[in-house]
């Protein structure tokens, strides 16, 4: 079976391409997605391939764009809205929360739309081009949230998101776009929304994480294994709402020590949700307190030294793991 090495970005592009080819109801719009190919060049060539009726640019109006996506979806189309940065999706949160998230509950009308939002930092993007906002989206009823860390998962989960009859926020980590490569087969394997993946096995502790931090965690675990002989499991959550509670409990049962890592802010971050689940349902399985390693509660800083102190990385994950393992 032929395999290709693709980047995370190419995985997203392939997922989008595949669904648009298979289903004429998939419409793509957003700022600069047409002839420019999108700010990150995900949709290069899409306008030529699929035509102006299915691929078009919009003015800068995230709230109206999201409302229009709701309208299209309510009529049976499958709109994919590209928000240029997740940071700007905040101006559309009202439509997502109050309209998209409530429409089926209130009226029985399904809203099969997808919002693609590039997120995350690590390259000096500053406070408004680096935000991790998954906690905001996860808090909304009626919305699903997906956040892949690998090219193969990005591809498969985008297909799943577009086909889901509910509003799905598909988070794409900008740092991973071109930094991560993976060998993938031609055929796109289906992945169910709501399943996590153990991407590194181990039994001394488990790291529950997602997004760019998956790769930092794997690096930390490998270093720890070589240096000190600890074997640390790494779980990529992949979907944040609904999330895979079974895998969380099972991996805690297997290791009895948990470190939760995410790039978003600390207070009320997604890690708080995982920590609460573990405390509620895996209390009897804990050999040490649950730990979280996250960004602190401050805006994403710009200067390189500040951002490095702000954003969790492999070295700090390793440090937190050692503390946990030796507890």
């Amino acid at each position: 079976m032929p395999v290709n090495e693709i980047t995370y970005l190419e995985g997203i592009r392939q997922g989008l391409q595949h669904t648009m080819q298979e289903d004429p109801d998939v419409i793509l719009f957003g700022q600069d997605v047409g002839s420019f190919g999108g700010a990150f060049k995900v949709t290069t060539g899409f306008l030529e391939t699929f035509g102006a009726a299915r691929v078009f640019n919009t003015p800068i109006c995230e709230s109206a764009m999201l409302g229009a996506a709701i309208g299209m979806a309510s009529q049976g189309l499958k709109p994919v809205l590209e928000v240029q940065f997740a940071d700007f999706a905040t101006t559309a949160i009202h439509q997502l929360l109050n309209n998209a998230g409530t429409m089926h509950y209130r009226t029985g009308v399904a809203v099969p739309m997808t919002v693609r939002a590039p997120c995350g930092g690590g390259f000096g993007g500053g406070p408004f081009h680096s935000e991790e906002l998954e906690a905001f989206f996860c808090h909304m009823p009626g919305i699903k949230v997906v956040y892949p860390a690998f090219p193969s998962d990005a591809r498969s989960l985008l297909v799943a998101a577009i086909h889901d009859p509910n509003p799905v926020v598909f988070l794409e980590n900008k740092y991973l776009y071109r930094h991560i490569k993976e060998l993938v087969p031609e055929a796109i394997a289906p992945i169910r929304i709501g399943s996590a993946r153990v991407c590194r096995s181990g039994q001394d502790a488990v790291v529950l994480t997602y997004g760019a931090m998956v790769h930092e965690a794997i690096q930390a675990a490998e270093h720890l294994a070589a240096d000190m002989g600890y074997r640390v499991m790494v779980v990529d959550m992949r979907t944040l709402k609904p999330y895979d509670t079974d895998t969380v409990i099972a991996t805690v049962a297997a290791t009895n020590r948990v470190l939760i890592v995410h790039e978003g802010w600390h207070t009320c971050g997604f890690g708080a949700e995982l920590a609460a689940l573990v405390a509620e349902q895996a209390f009897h399985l804990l050999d040490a307190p649950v730990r979280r390693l996250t960004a602190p509660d401050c805006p994403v800083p710009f200067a390189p030294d500040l951002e490095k102190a702000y954003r969790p990385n492999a070295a700090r994950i390793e440090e937190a793991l050692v503390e946990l393992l030796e507890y």
Partner: protein
Amino acid sequence: MNDATSLFLLRVMLTTRAIEERLIRLYHQGRIFGGVYTGLGQEASGAAVAAIAAPNDLFAPCIRNLSLHIGRGASPRDLFRQWLGRADGPTGGRDGNVHFGNLDHGVYAMISHLGAMISVVSGGVMARRYQGMDSVGFAFIGDGATSTGDFHESVNFAAVREVPLMVVVENNHYAYSTPNASQFRCRNLVDKAAGYGIEGIALDGNDAIGLTEALAPVVADLREKPRTVLVEVDTMRMRGHGEHDDFSYVPRELLAAYAARDPLTVCREILLARGLINPPGLEALEAEVQQAVDQAQQAAFRDPPPSPSTLLKGVYAGE
């Protein structure tokens, strides 16, 4: 305009008025929970749009557009069930008062955030056009909603994308207690259209027949040459923002002036003058409407409320 349409307008407005007056009375009797917001005095534009529009058109009515709902097929029983939060109501008790719709009739259920539905109905019309239908969209909003970011973004978006959309702004001069002078600085609200590069039309909002006659050709043109237009209709809210509001901030003379030009009065006079109906016929129609409303109300009071066991159903589609 044909006779049937004229009578349709009258019937729709009579039904709307009867229902809302009943809701007001029930509210005062403490037999309705939540708020009651009526469109008393503003029935004309909804009825007119309902009359003009085609079967495949889409609508986003706002708070005071019950006449649009009625005109597009909502029954009095639906309405009472909705207000009483019944399990078999249009939203199953999940939302209250006028936050309901019926997409089979092309009517979107509004949310409280004003201006939010303009982009939704735009997207819906874009979808229908993509699907090969020649739909036109109608978004109703008030003067206050034209200040929101959503109004601005949505109208601009629709204008740029050339969505066949009629934005009907019902200028009833007060957004809750805020008069126009504190809401915008344009001399006329319709002037805002120029800022978006679209046509603006100003009309008398209390004359249903006049509105129908003026807007029918506009809609027909939109259907052929998709674009967005802004229509400002001048009207008056004859009650408070909600029934909990005593609207003492509205000058009584203003209310009196609009009362003299009540849409039902205006319509009845025209129909009588044109010989399309006579006093006995009118009386019979009014009685028929009243009886339908009575029956619907009584039945709705007997309908069951939603069970708490259904609380989490339908959060997600497909599950």
